[in-house]
């Protein structure tokens, strides 16, 4: 599995803003070179067996959103199809603009454009959008999708359109009201950036007559410039032009290529080879990332042509290690573990500096307002090497302070890891490093696709588990609370029994409601430091990613919010 896909499975996060200009090596983008022209077939090579979900209300992860959103499903608003910072700005898509808030942000209205149609030529109405959004309430059928609509929209106990009673449906229709071309959302609480939420495909239209629930995933109706010609899991998805898409109604999508083919089920090693070889149809192909073992070949073997069609960039993710603070309730033990780690060796096992920079916290520098350099624990080596002496000293200190925790560490810590070759090697390094200070690991190999469900299960007794996260948008409010408070969606640190937790939670809640963005940023910086000082989790890397594309593909910039290509606007040179 590519790093991206493992992480993708983790965080349901979207990254707004961030990146782009922060690129390290590689050429920047393929946006400017030559005139974009129509025609040809763009190919996307992937090891996945299918698109996780092509049903707009179920589609969530970064690359899938970038793909489905730019080709098939229009939403009310969208991130701009631009390189760099501009790509993190939003614009109206089906809606004429980015919406109007009223009632102190509790009511949002969007006016639909003229000339928007489904693939059968029928006009997209307000009812279609409202119906689409209503589907996302049917969480027993429409699974895996974002649940923002459910938590924001002011309707109680609505089970979605399939099983709703007449009253329930009426209540929904009141909360999501249609008046001519205008759709109005009545929200429970004020949401200042609801028009960012509406970039999600949850807000895409679905024609009720064509909805077949669970099976809609395989044959969703297109509202964008492409429609499905064939879709076979494990083989390919072929998109062709949707002749009923009206270019005048769409300011974002250029729809250069005549067709887009997603090739599924390829061996990862094969994908890289095909991309490097750049032969035949693969000249028109893009892939999902580069295997670590091929980075040297692509970036540092002096092949300029190869380098020119690849990019090395910071993606929105931060990697870190979750510690179970109920078991490891002693700071000195956590510190000993952190200092004993040869982070440089771990990084090499994953592919070296191209995997990312050593992180000093959990907020990426790209979140400029919320990031500040952290003070790391005493004895922390910035070059990533282990400090065994300092680690041993920490163990000695812990021996007197919390002998039981040390005893646990010496008898064996439960180490949960996804069973992949790279992680097997990382585990060996962990074992070696902790062995140097007398700690032991009890490795638990977990089938990669089951990793998050396993460790997120409160009954799983891990001591150490991996973590990775990206902000949902450009605010550390989607990071610190998510990862370290009990109400967060991805808190694997089990830190609620820590003596400082109550204080921490108070500080977080204060930061959340601070409307002064700069002051709020300061608060996040301090809270980030707060966590680092307690080492509830161990910072890993500010991750980077690499992409490669065929020599005849244009518009290959990495789209900020998604850390992926802007698939629909790729063109054949």
């Amino acid at each position, binding site marked *: 599995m590519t790093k991206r896909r493992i992480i993708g499975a983790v965080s349901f996060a979207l990254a707004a803003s961030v990146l782009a200009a922060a690129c390290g090596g590689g050429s920047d983008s393929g946006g400017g070179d030559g005139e974009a022209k129509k025609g040809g077939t763009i190919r996307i090579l992937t090891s996945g067996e299918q698109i996780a979900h092509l049903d707009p209300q179920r589609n969530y992860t970064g690359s899938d959103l970038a793909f489905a959103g730019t080709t098939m499903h229009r939403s009310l608003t969208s991130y701009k199809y631009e390189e760099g910072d501009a790509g993190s700005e939003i614009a109206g898509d089906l809606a004429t603009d980015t919406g109007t808030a009223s009632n102190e942000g509790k009511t949002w209205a969007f006016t639909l454009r003229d000339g928007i149609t489904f693939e059968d030529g029928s006009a997209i109405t307000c009812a279609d959008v409202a119906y689409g959004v209503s589907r996302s309430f049917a969480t027993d059928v429409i699974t895996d999708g974002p649940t923002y609509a459910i938590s924001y929209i002011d309707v109680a106990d609505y089970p979605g359109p399939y099983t709703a009673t007449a009253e329930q449906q009426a209540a929904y229709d009141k909360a999501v009201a249609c008046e001519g071309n205008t759709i109005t959302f009545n929200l429970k609480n004020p949401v200042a950036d609801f028009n960012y939420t509406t970039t999600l495909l949850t807000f895409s239209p679905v024609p009720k007559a064509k909805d077949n629930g669970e099976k809609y995933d395989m044959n969703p109706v297109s509202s964008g410039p492409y429609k499905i010609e064939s879709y076979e899991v494990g083989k390919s998805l072929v998109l062709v032009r949707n002749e009923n898409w009206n270019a005048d109604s769409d300011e974002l999508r250029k729809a250069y290529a005549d067709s887009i083919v997603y090739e599924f089920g390829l061996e990862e090693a094969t994908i890289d080879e095909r991309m490097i070889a750049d032969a035949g149809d693969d000249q028109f192909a893009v892939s999902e990332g580069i295997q*670590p073992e091929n980075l040297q070949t692509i970036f540092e073997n002096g092949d300029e042509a190869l380098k020119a069609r690849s990019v090395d960039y910071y993606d929105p993710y931060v990697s870190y290690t979750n510690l179970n603070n109920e078991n490891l309730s002693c700071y000195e033990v956590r510190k000993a573990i952190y200092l004993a780690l040869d982070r440089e060796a771990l990084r090499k096992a994953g592919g070296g500096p*191209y995997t990312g920079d050593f992180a000093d916290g959990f907020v990426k520098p790209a979140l400029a307002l919320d990031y500040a350099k952290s003070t790391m624990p005493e004895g922390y080596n910035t070059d990533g090497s282990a400090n065994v002496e300092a680690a041993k000293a920490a163990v000695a200190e812990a021996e007197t302070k919390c002998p039981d925790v040390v005893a646990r560490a010496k008898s064996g810590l439960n180490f949960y890891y996804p069973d*992949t*070759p790279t992680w097997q090697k990382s585990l*060996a390094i962990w074992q*070696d490093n902790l062995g140097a200070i007398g700690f032991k690991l009890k*490795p638990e190999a977990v089938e*990669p696709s089951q990793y998050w469900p396993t460790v997120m299960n409160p009954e799983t007794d891990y001591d150490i588990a991996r973590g990775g996260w990206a902000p949902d948008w450009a605010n550390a409010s989607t990071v610190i609370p998510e990862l370290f408070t009990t109400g967060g969606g991805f808190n694997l640190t089990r830190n609620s029994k820590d003596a400082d937790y109550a204080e921490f939670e108070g500080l977080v809640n204060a930061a959340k409601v601070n409307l002064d963005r700069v002051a709020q940023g300061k608060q996040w910086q301090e809270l980030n430091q707060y966590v680092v000082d307690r080492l509830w989790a161990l910072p890993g890397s500010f991750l980077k990613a690499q992409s490669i594309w065929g020599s005849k593909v244009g518009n290959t910039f990495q789209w900020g919010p998604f850390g992926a290509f802007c698939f629909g606007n790729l063109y054949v040179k």
Partner: protein
Amino acid sequence: MSATFTDTATLASDGTVGVVIEGKSPRQLAWMRFRRDKFALAAAGVILFYIFAAAFAPVICAVLGISPYELDGDALNDFGLPKGAFGGISSEHWLGVEPGTGRDILARLLYGARVSLLVGFLGTLLTTTIGVMIGIFAGYRRGKVDAVVGRFMDLTLAFPSFLLIIALTRPFTQRLESLGVPEGNPARLTYIVLVLATFGWVYVARVVRGQTLSLREREFVEAARASGAGTGHIVFKQLLPNLWAPVIVIVSLSLPGYVATESTLSFLGLGMLPPAASWGVMLGDSVKYYRADPTYLFIPGVALIVLVLAFNILGDAVRDALDPKADRQTL
């Protein structure tokens, strides 16, 4: 007209060659013939060498000053790939180092041989023992017993074994652990061996059953039975010695197959757990480095080929040596 000459040690009764060698038992003859086969001797030597290397892996590693677990980040470049040509082969690391960790490949190969050979030998031993026992039982008792065993074999064969092996790895390993098998690799190893035997015995049993059916009709078995020999005597003294040739062929084919199965499971992430080394783990890991570090790709592969080849040659040679009709007609 019943008198015949005393036929002592006549090898070929049809007279094509009619070699008569005095005073040698069939086993001695087989040994004689085997000893003359240079290929077979070389193959036997290779296998002994592997077994020796595996058995004394810790000693060899200690003497050479290498360890399968010791990380060597200095041997790797920034990308985690071995520094220097040919996968980082150096005076310190004779076969280079593993990408990502810098562990010594020779040491891992030696330790890996222990796992791979253990899986191969235990799997074969268990499979063959069960298969031969059931095969003889069915073939000797015939009738109802044979029918019941036959249906059971059909049932076992009807399952797509490889799919089941994969699907059941994790749950059954856990079950084994809960039954008291030490956690981690001992449990996985036990599982692999058990599951190989569960599906493998049928192939042995089928062949043995067929042979037993025909052997039990032969004069010498009839004679033994007529002279009141017990079942035990007939099975161990009359039947078993005559089953060696086919069994050896199966063994020489299945043993490498088991080593390969271990590799495939490792490739799928179901093999030995780190930091333990096995050839399967190495093979599975090495394929993705075919471009970045081809040396690493070939070393475990070649090690395996040589071993398997040796087993095949040895198997053929032993079969030929045991088969008195080995070289007669050539068209």
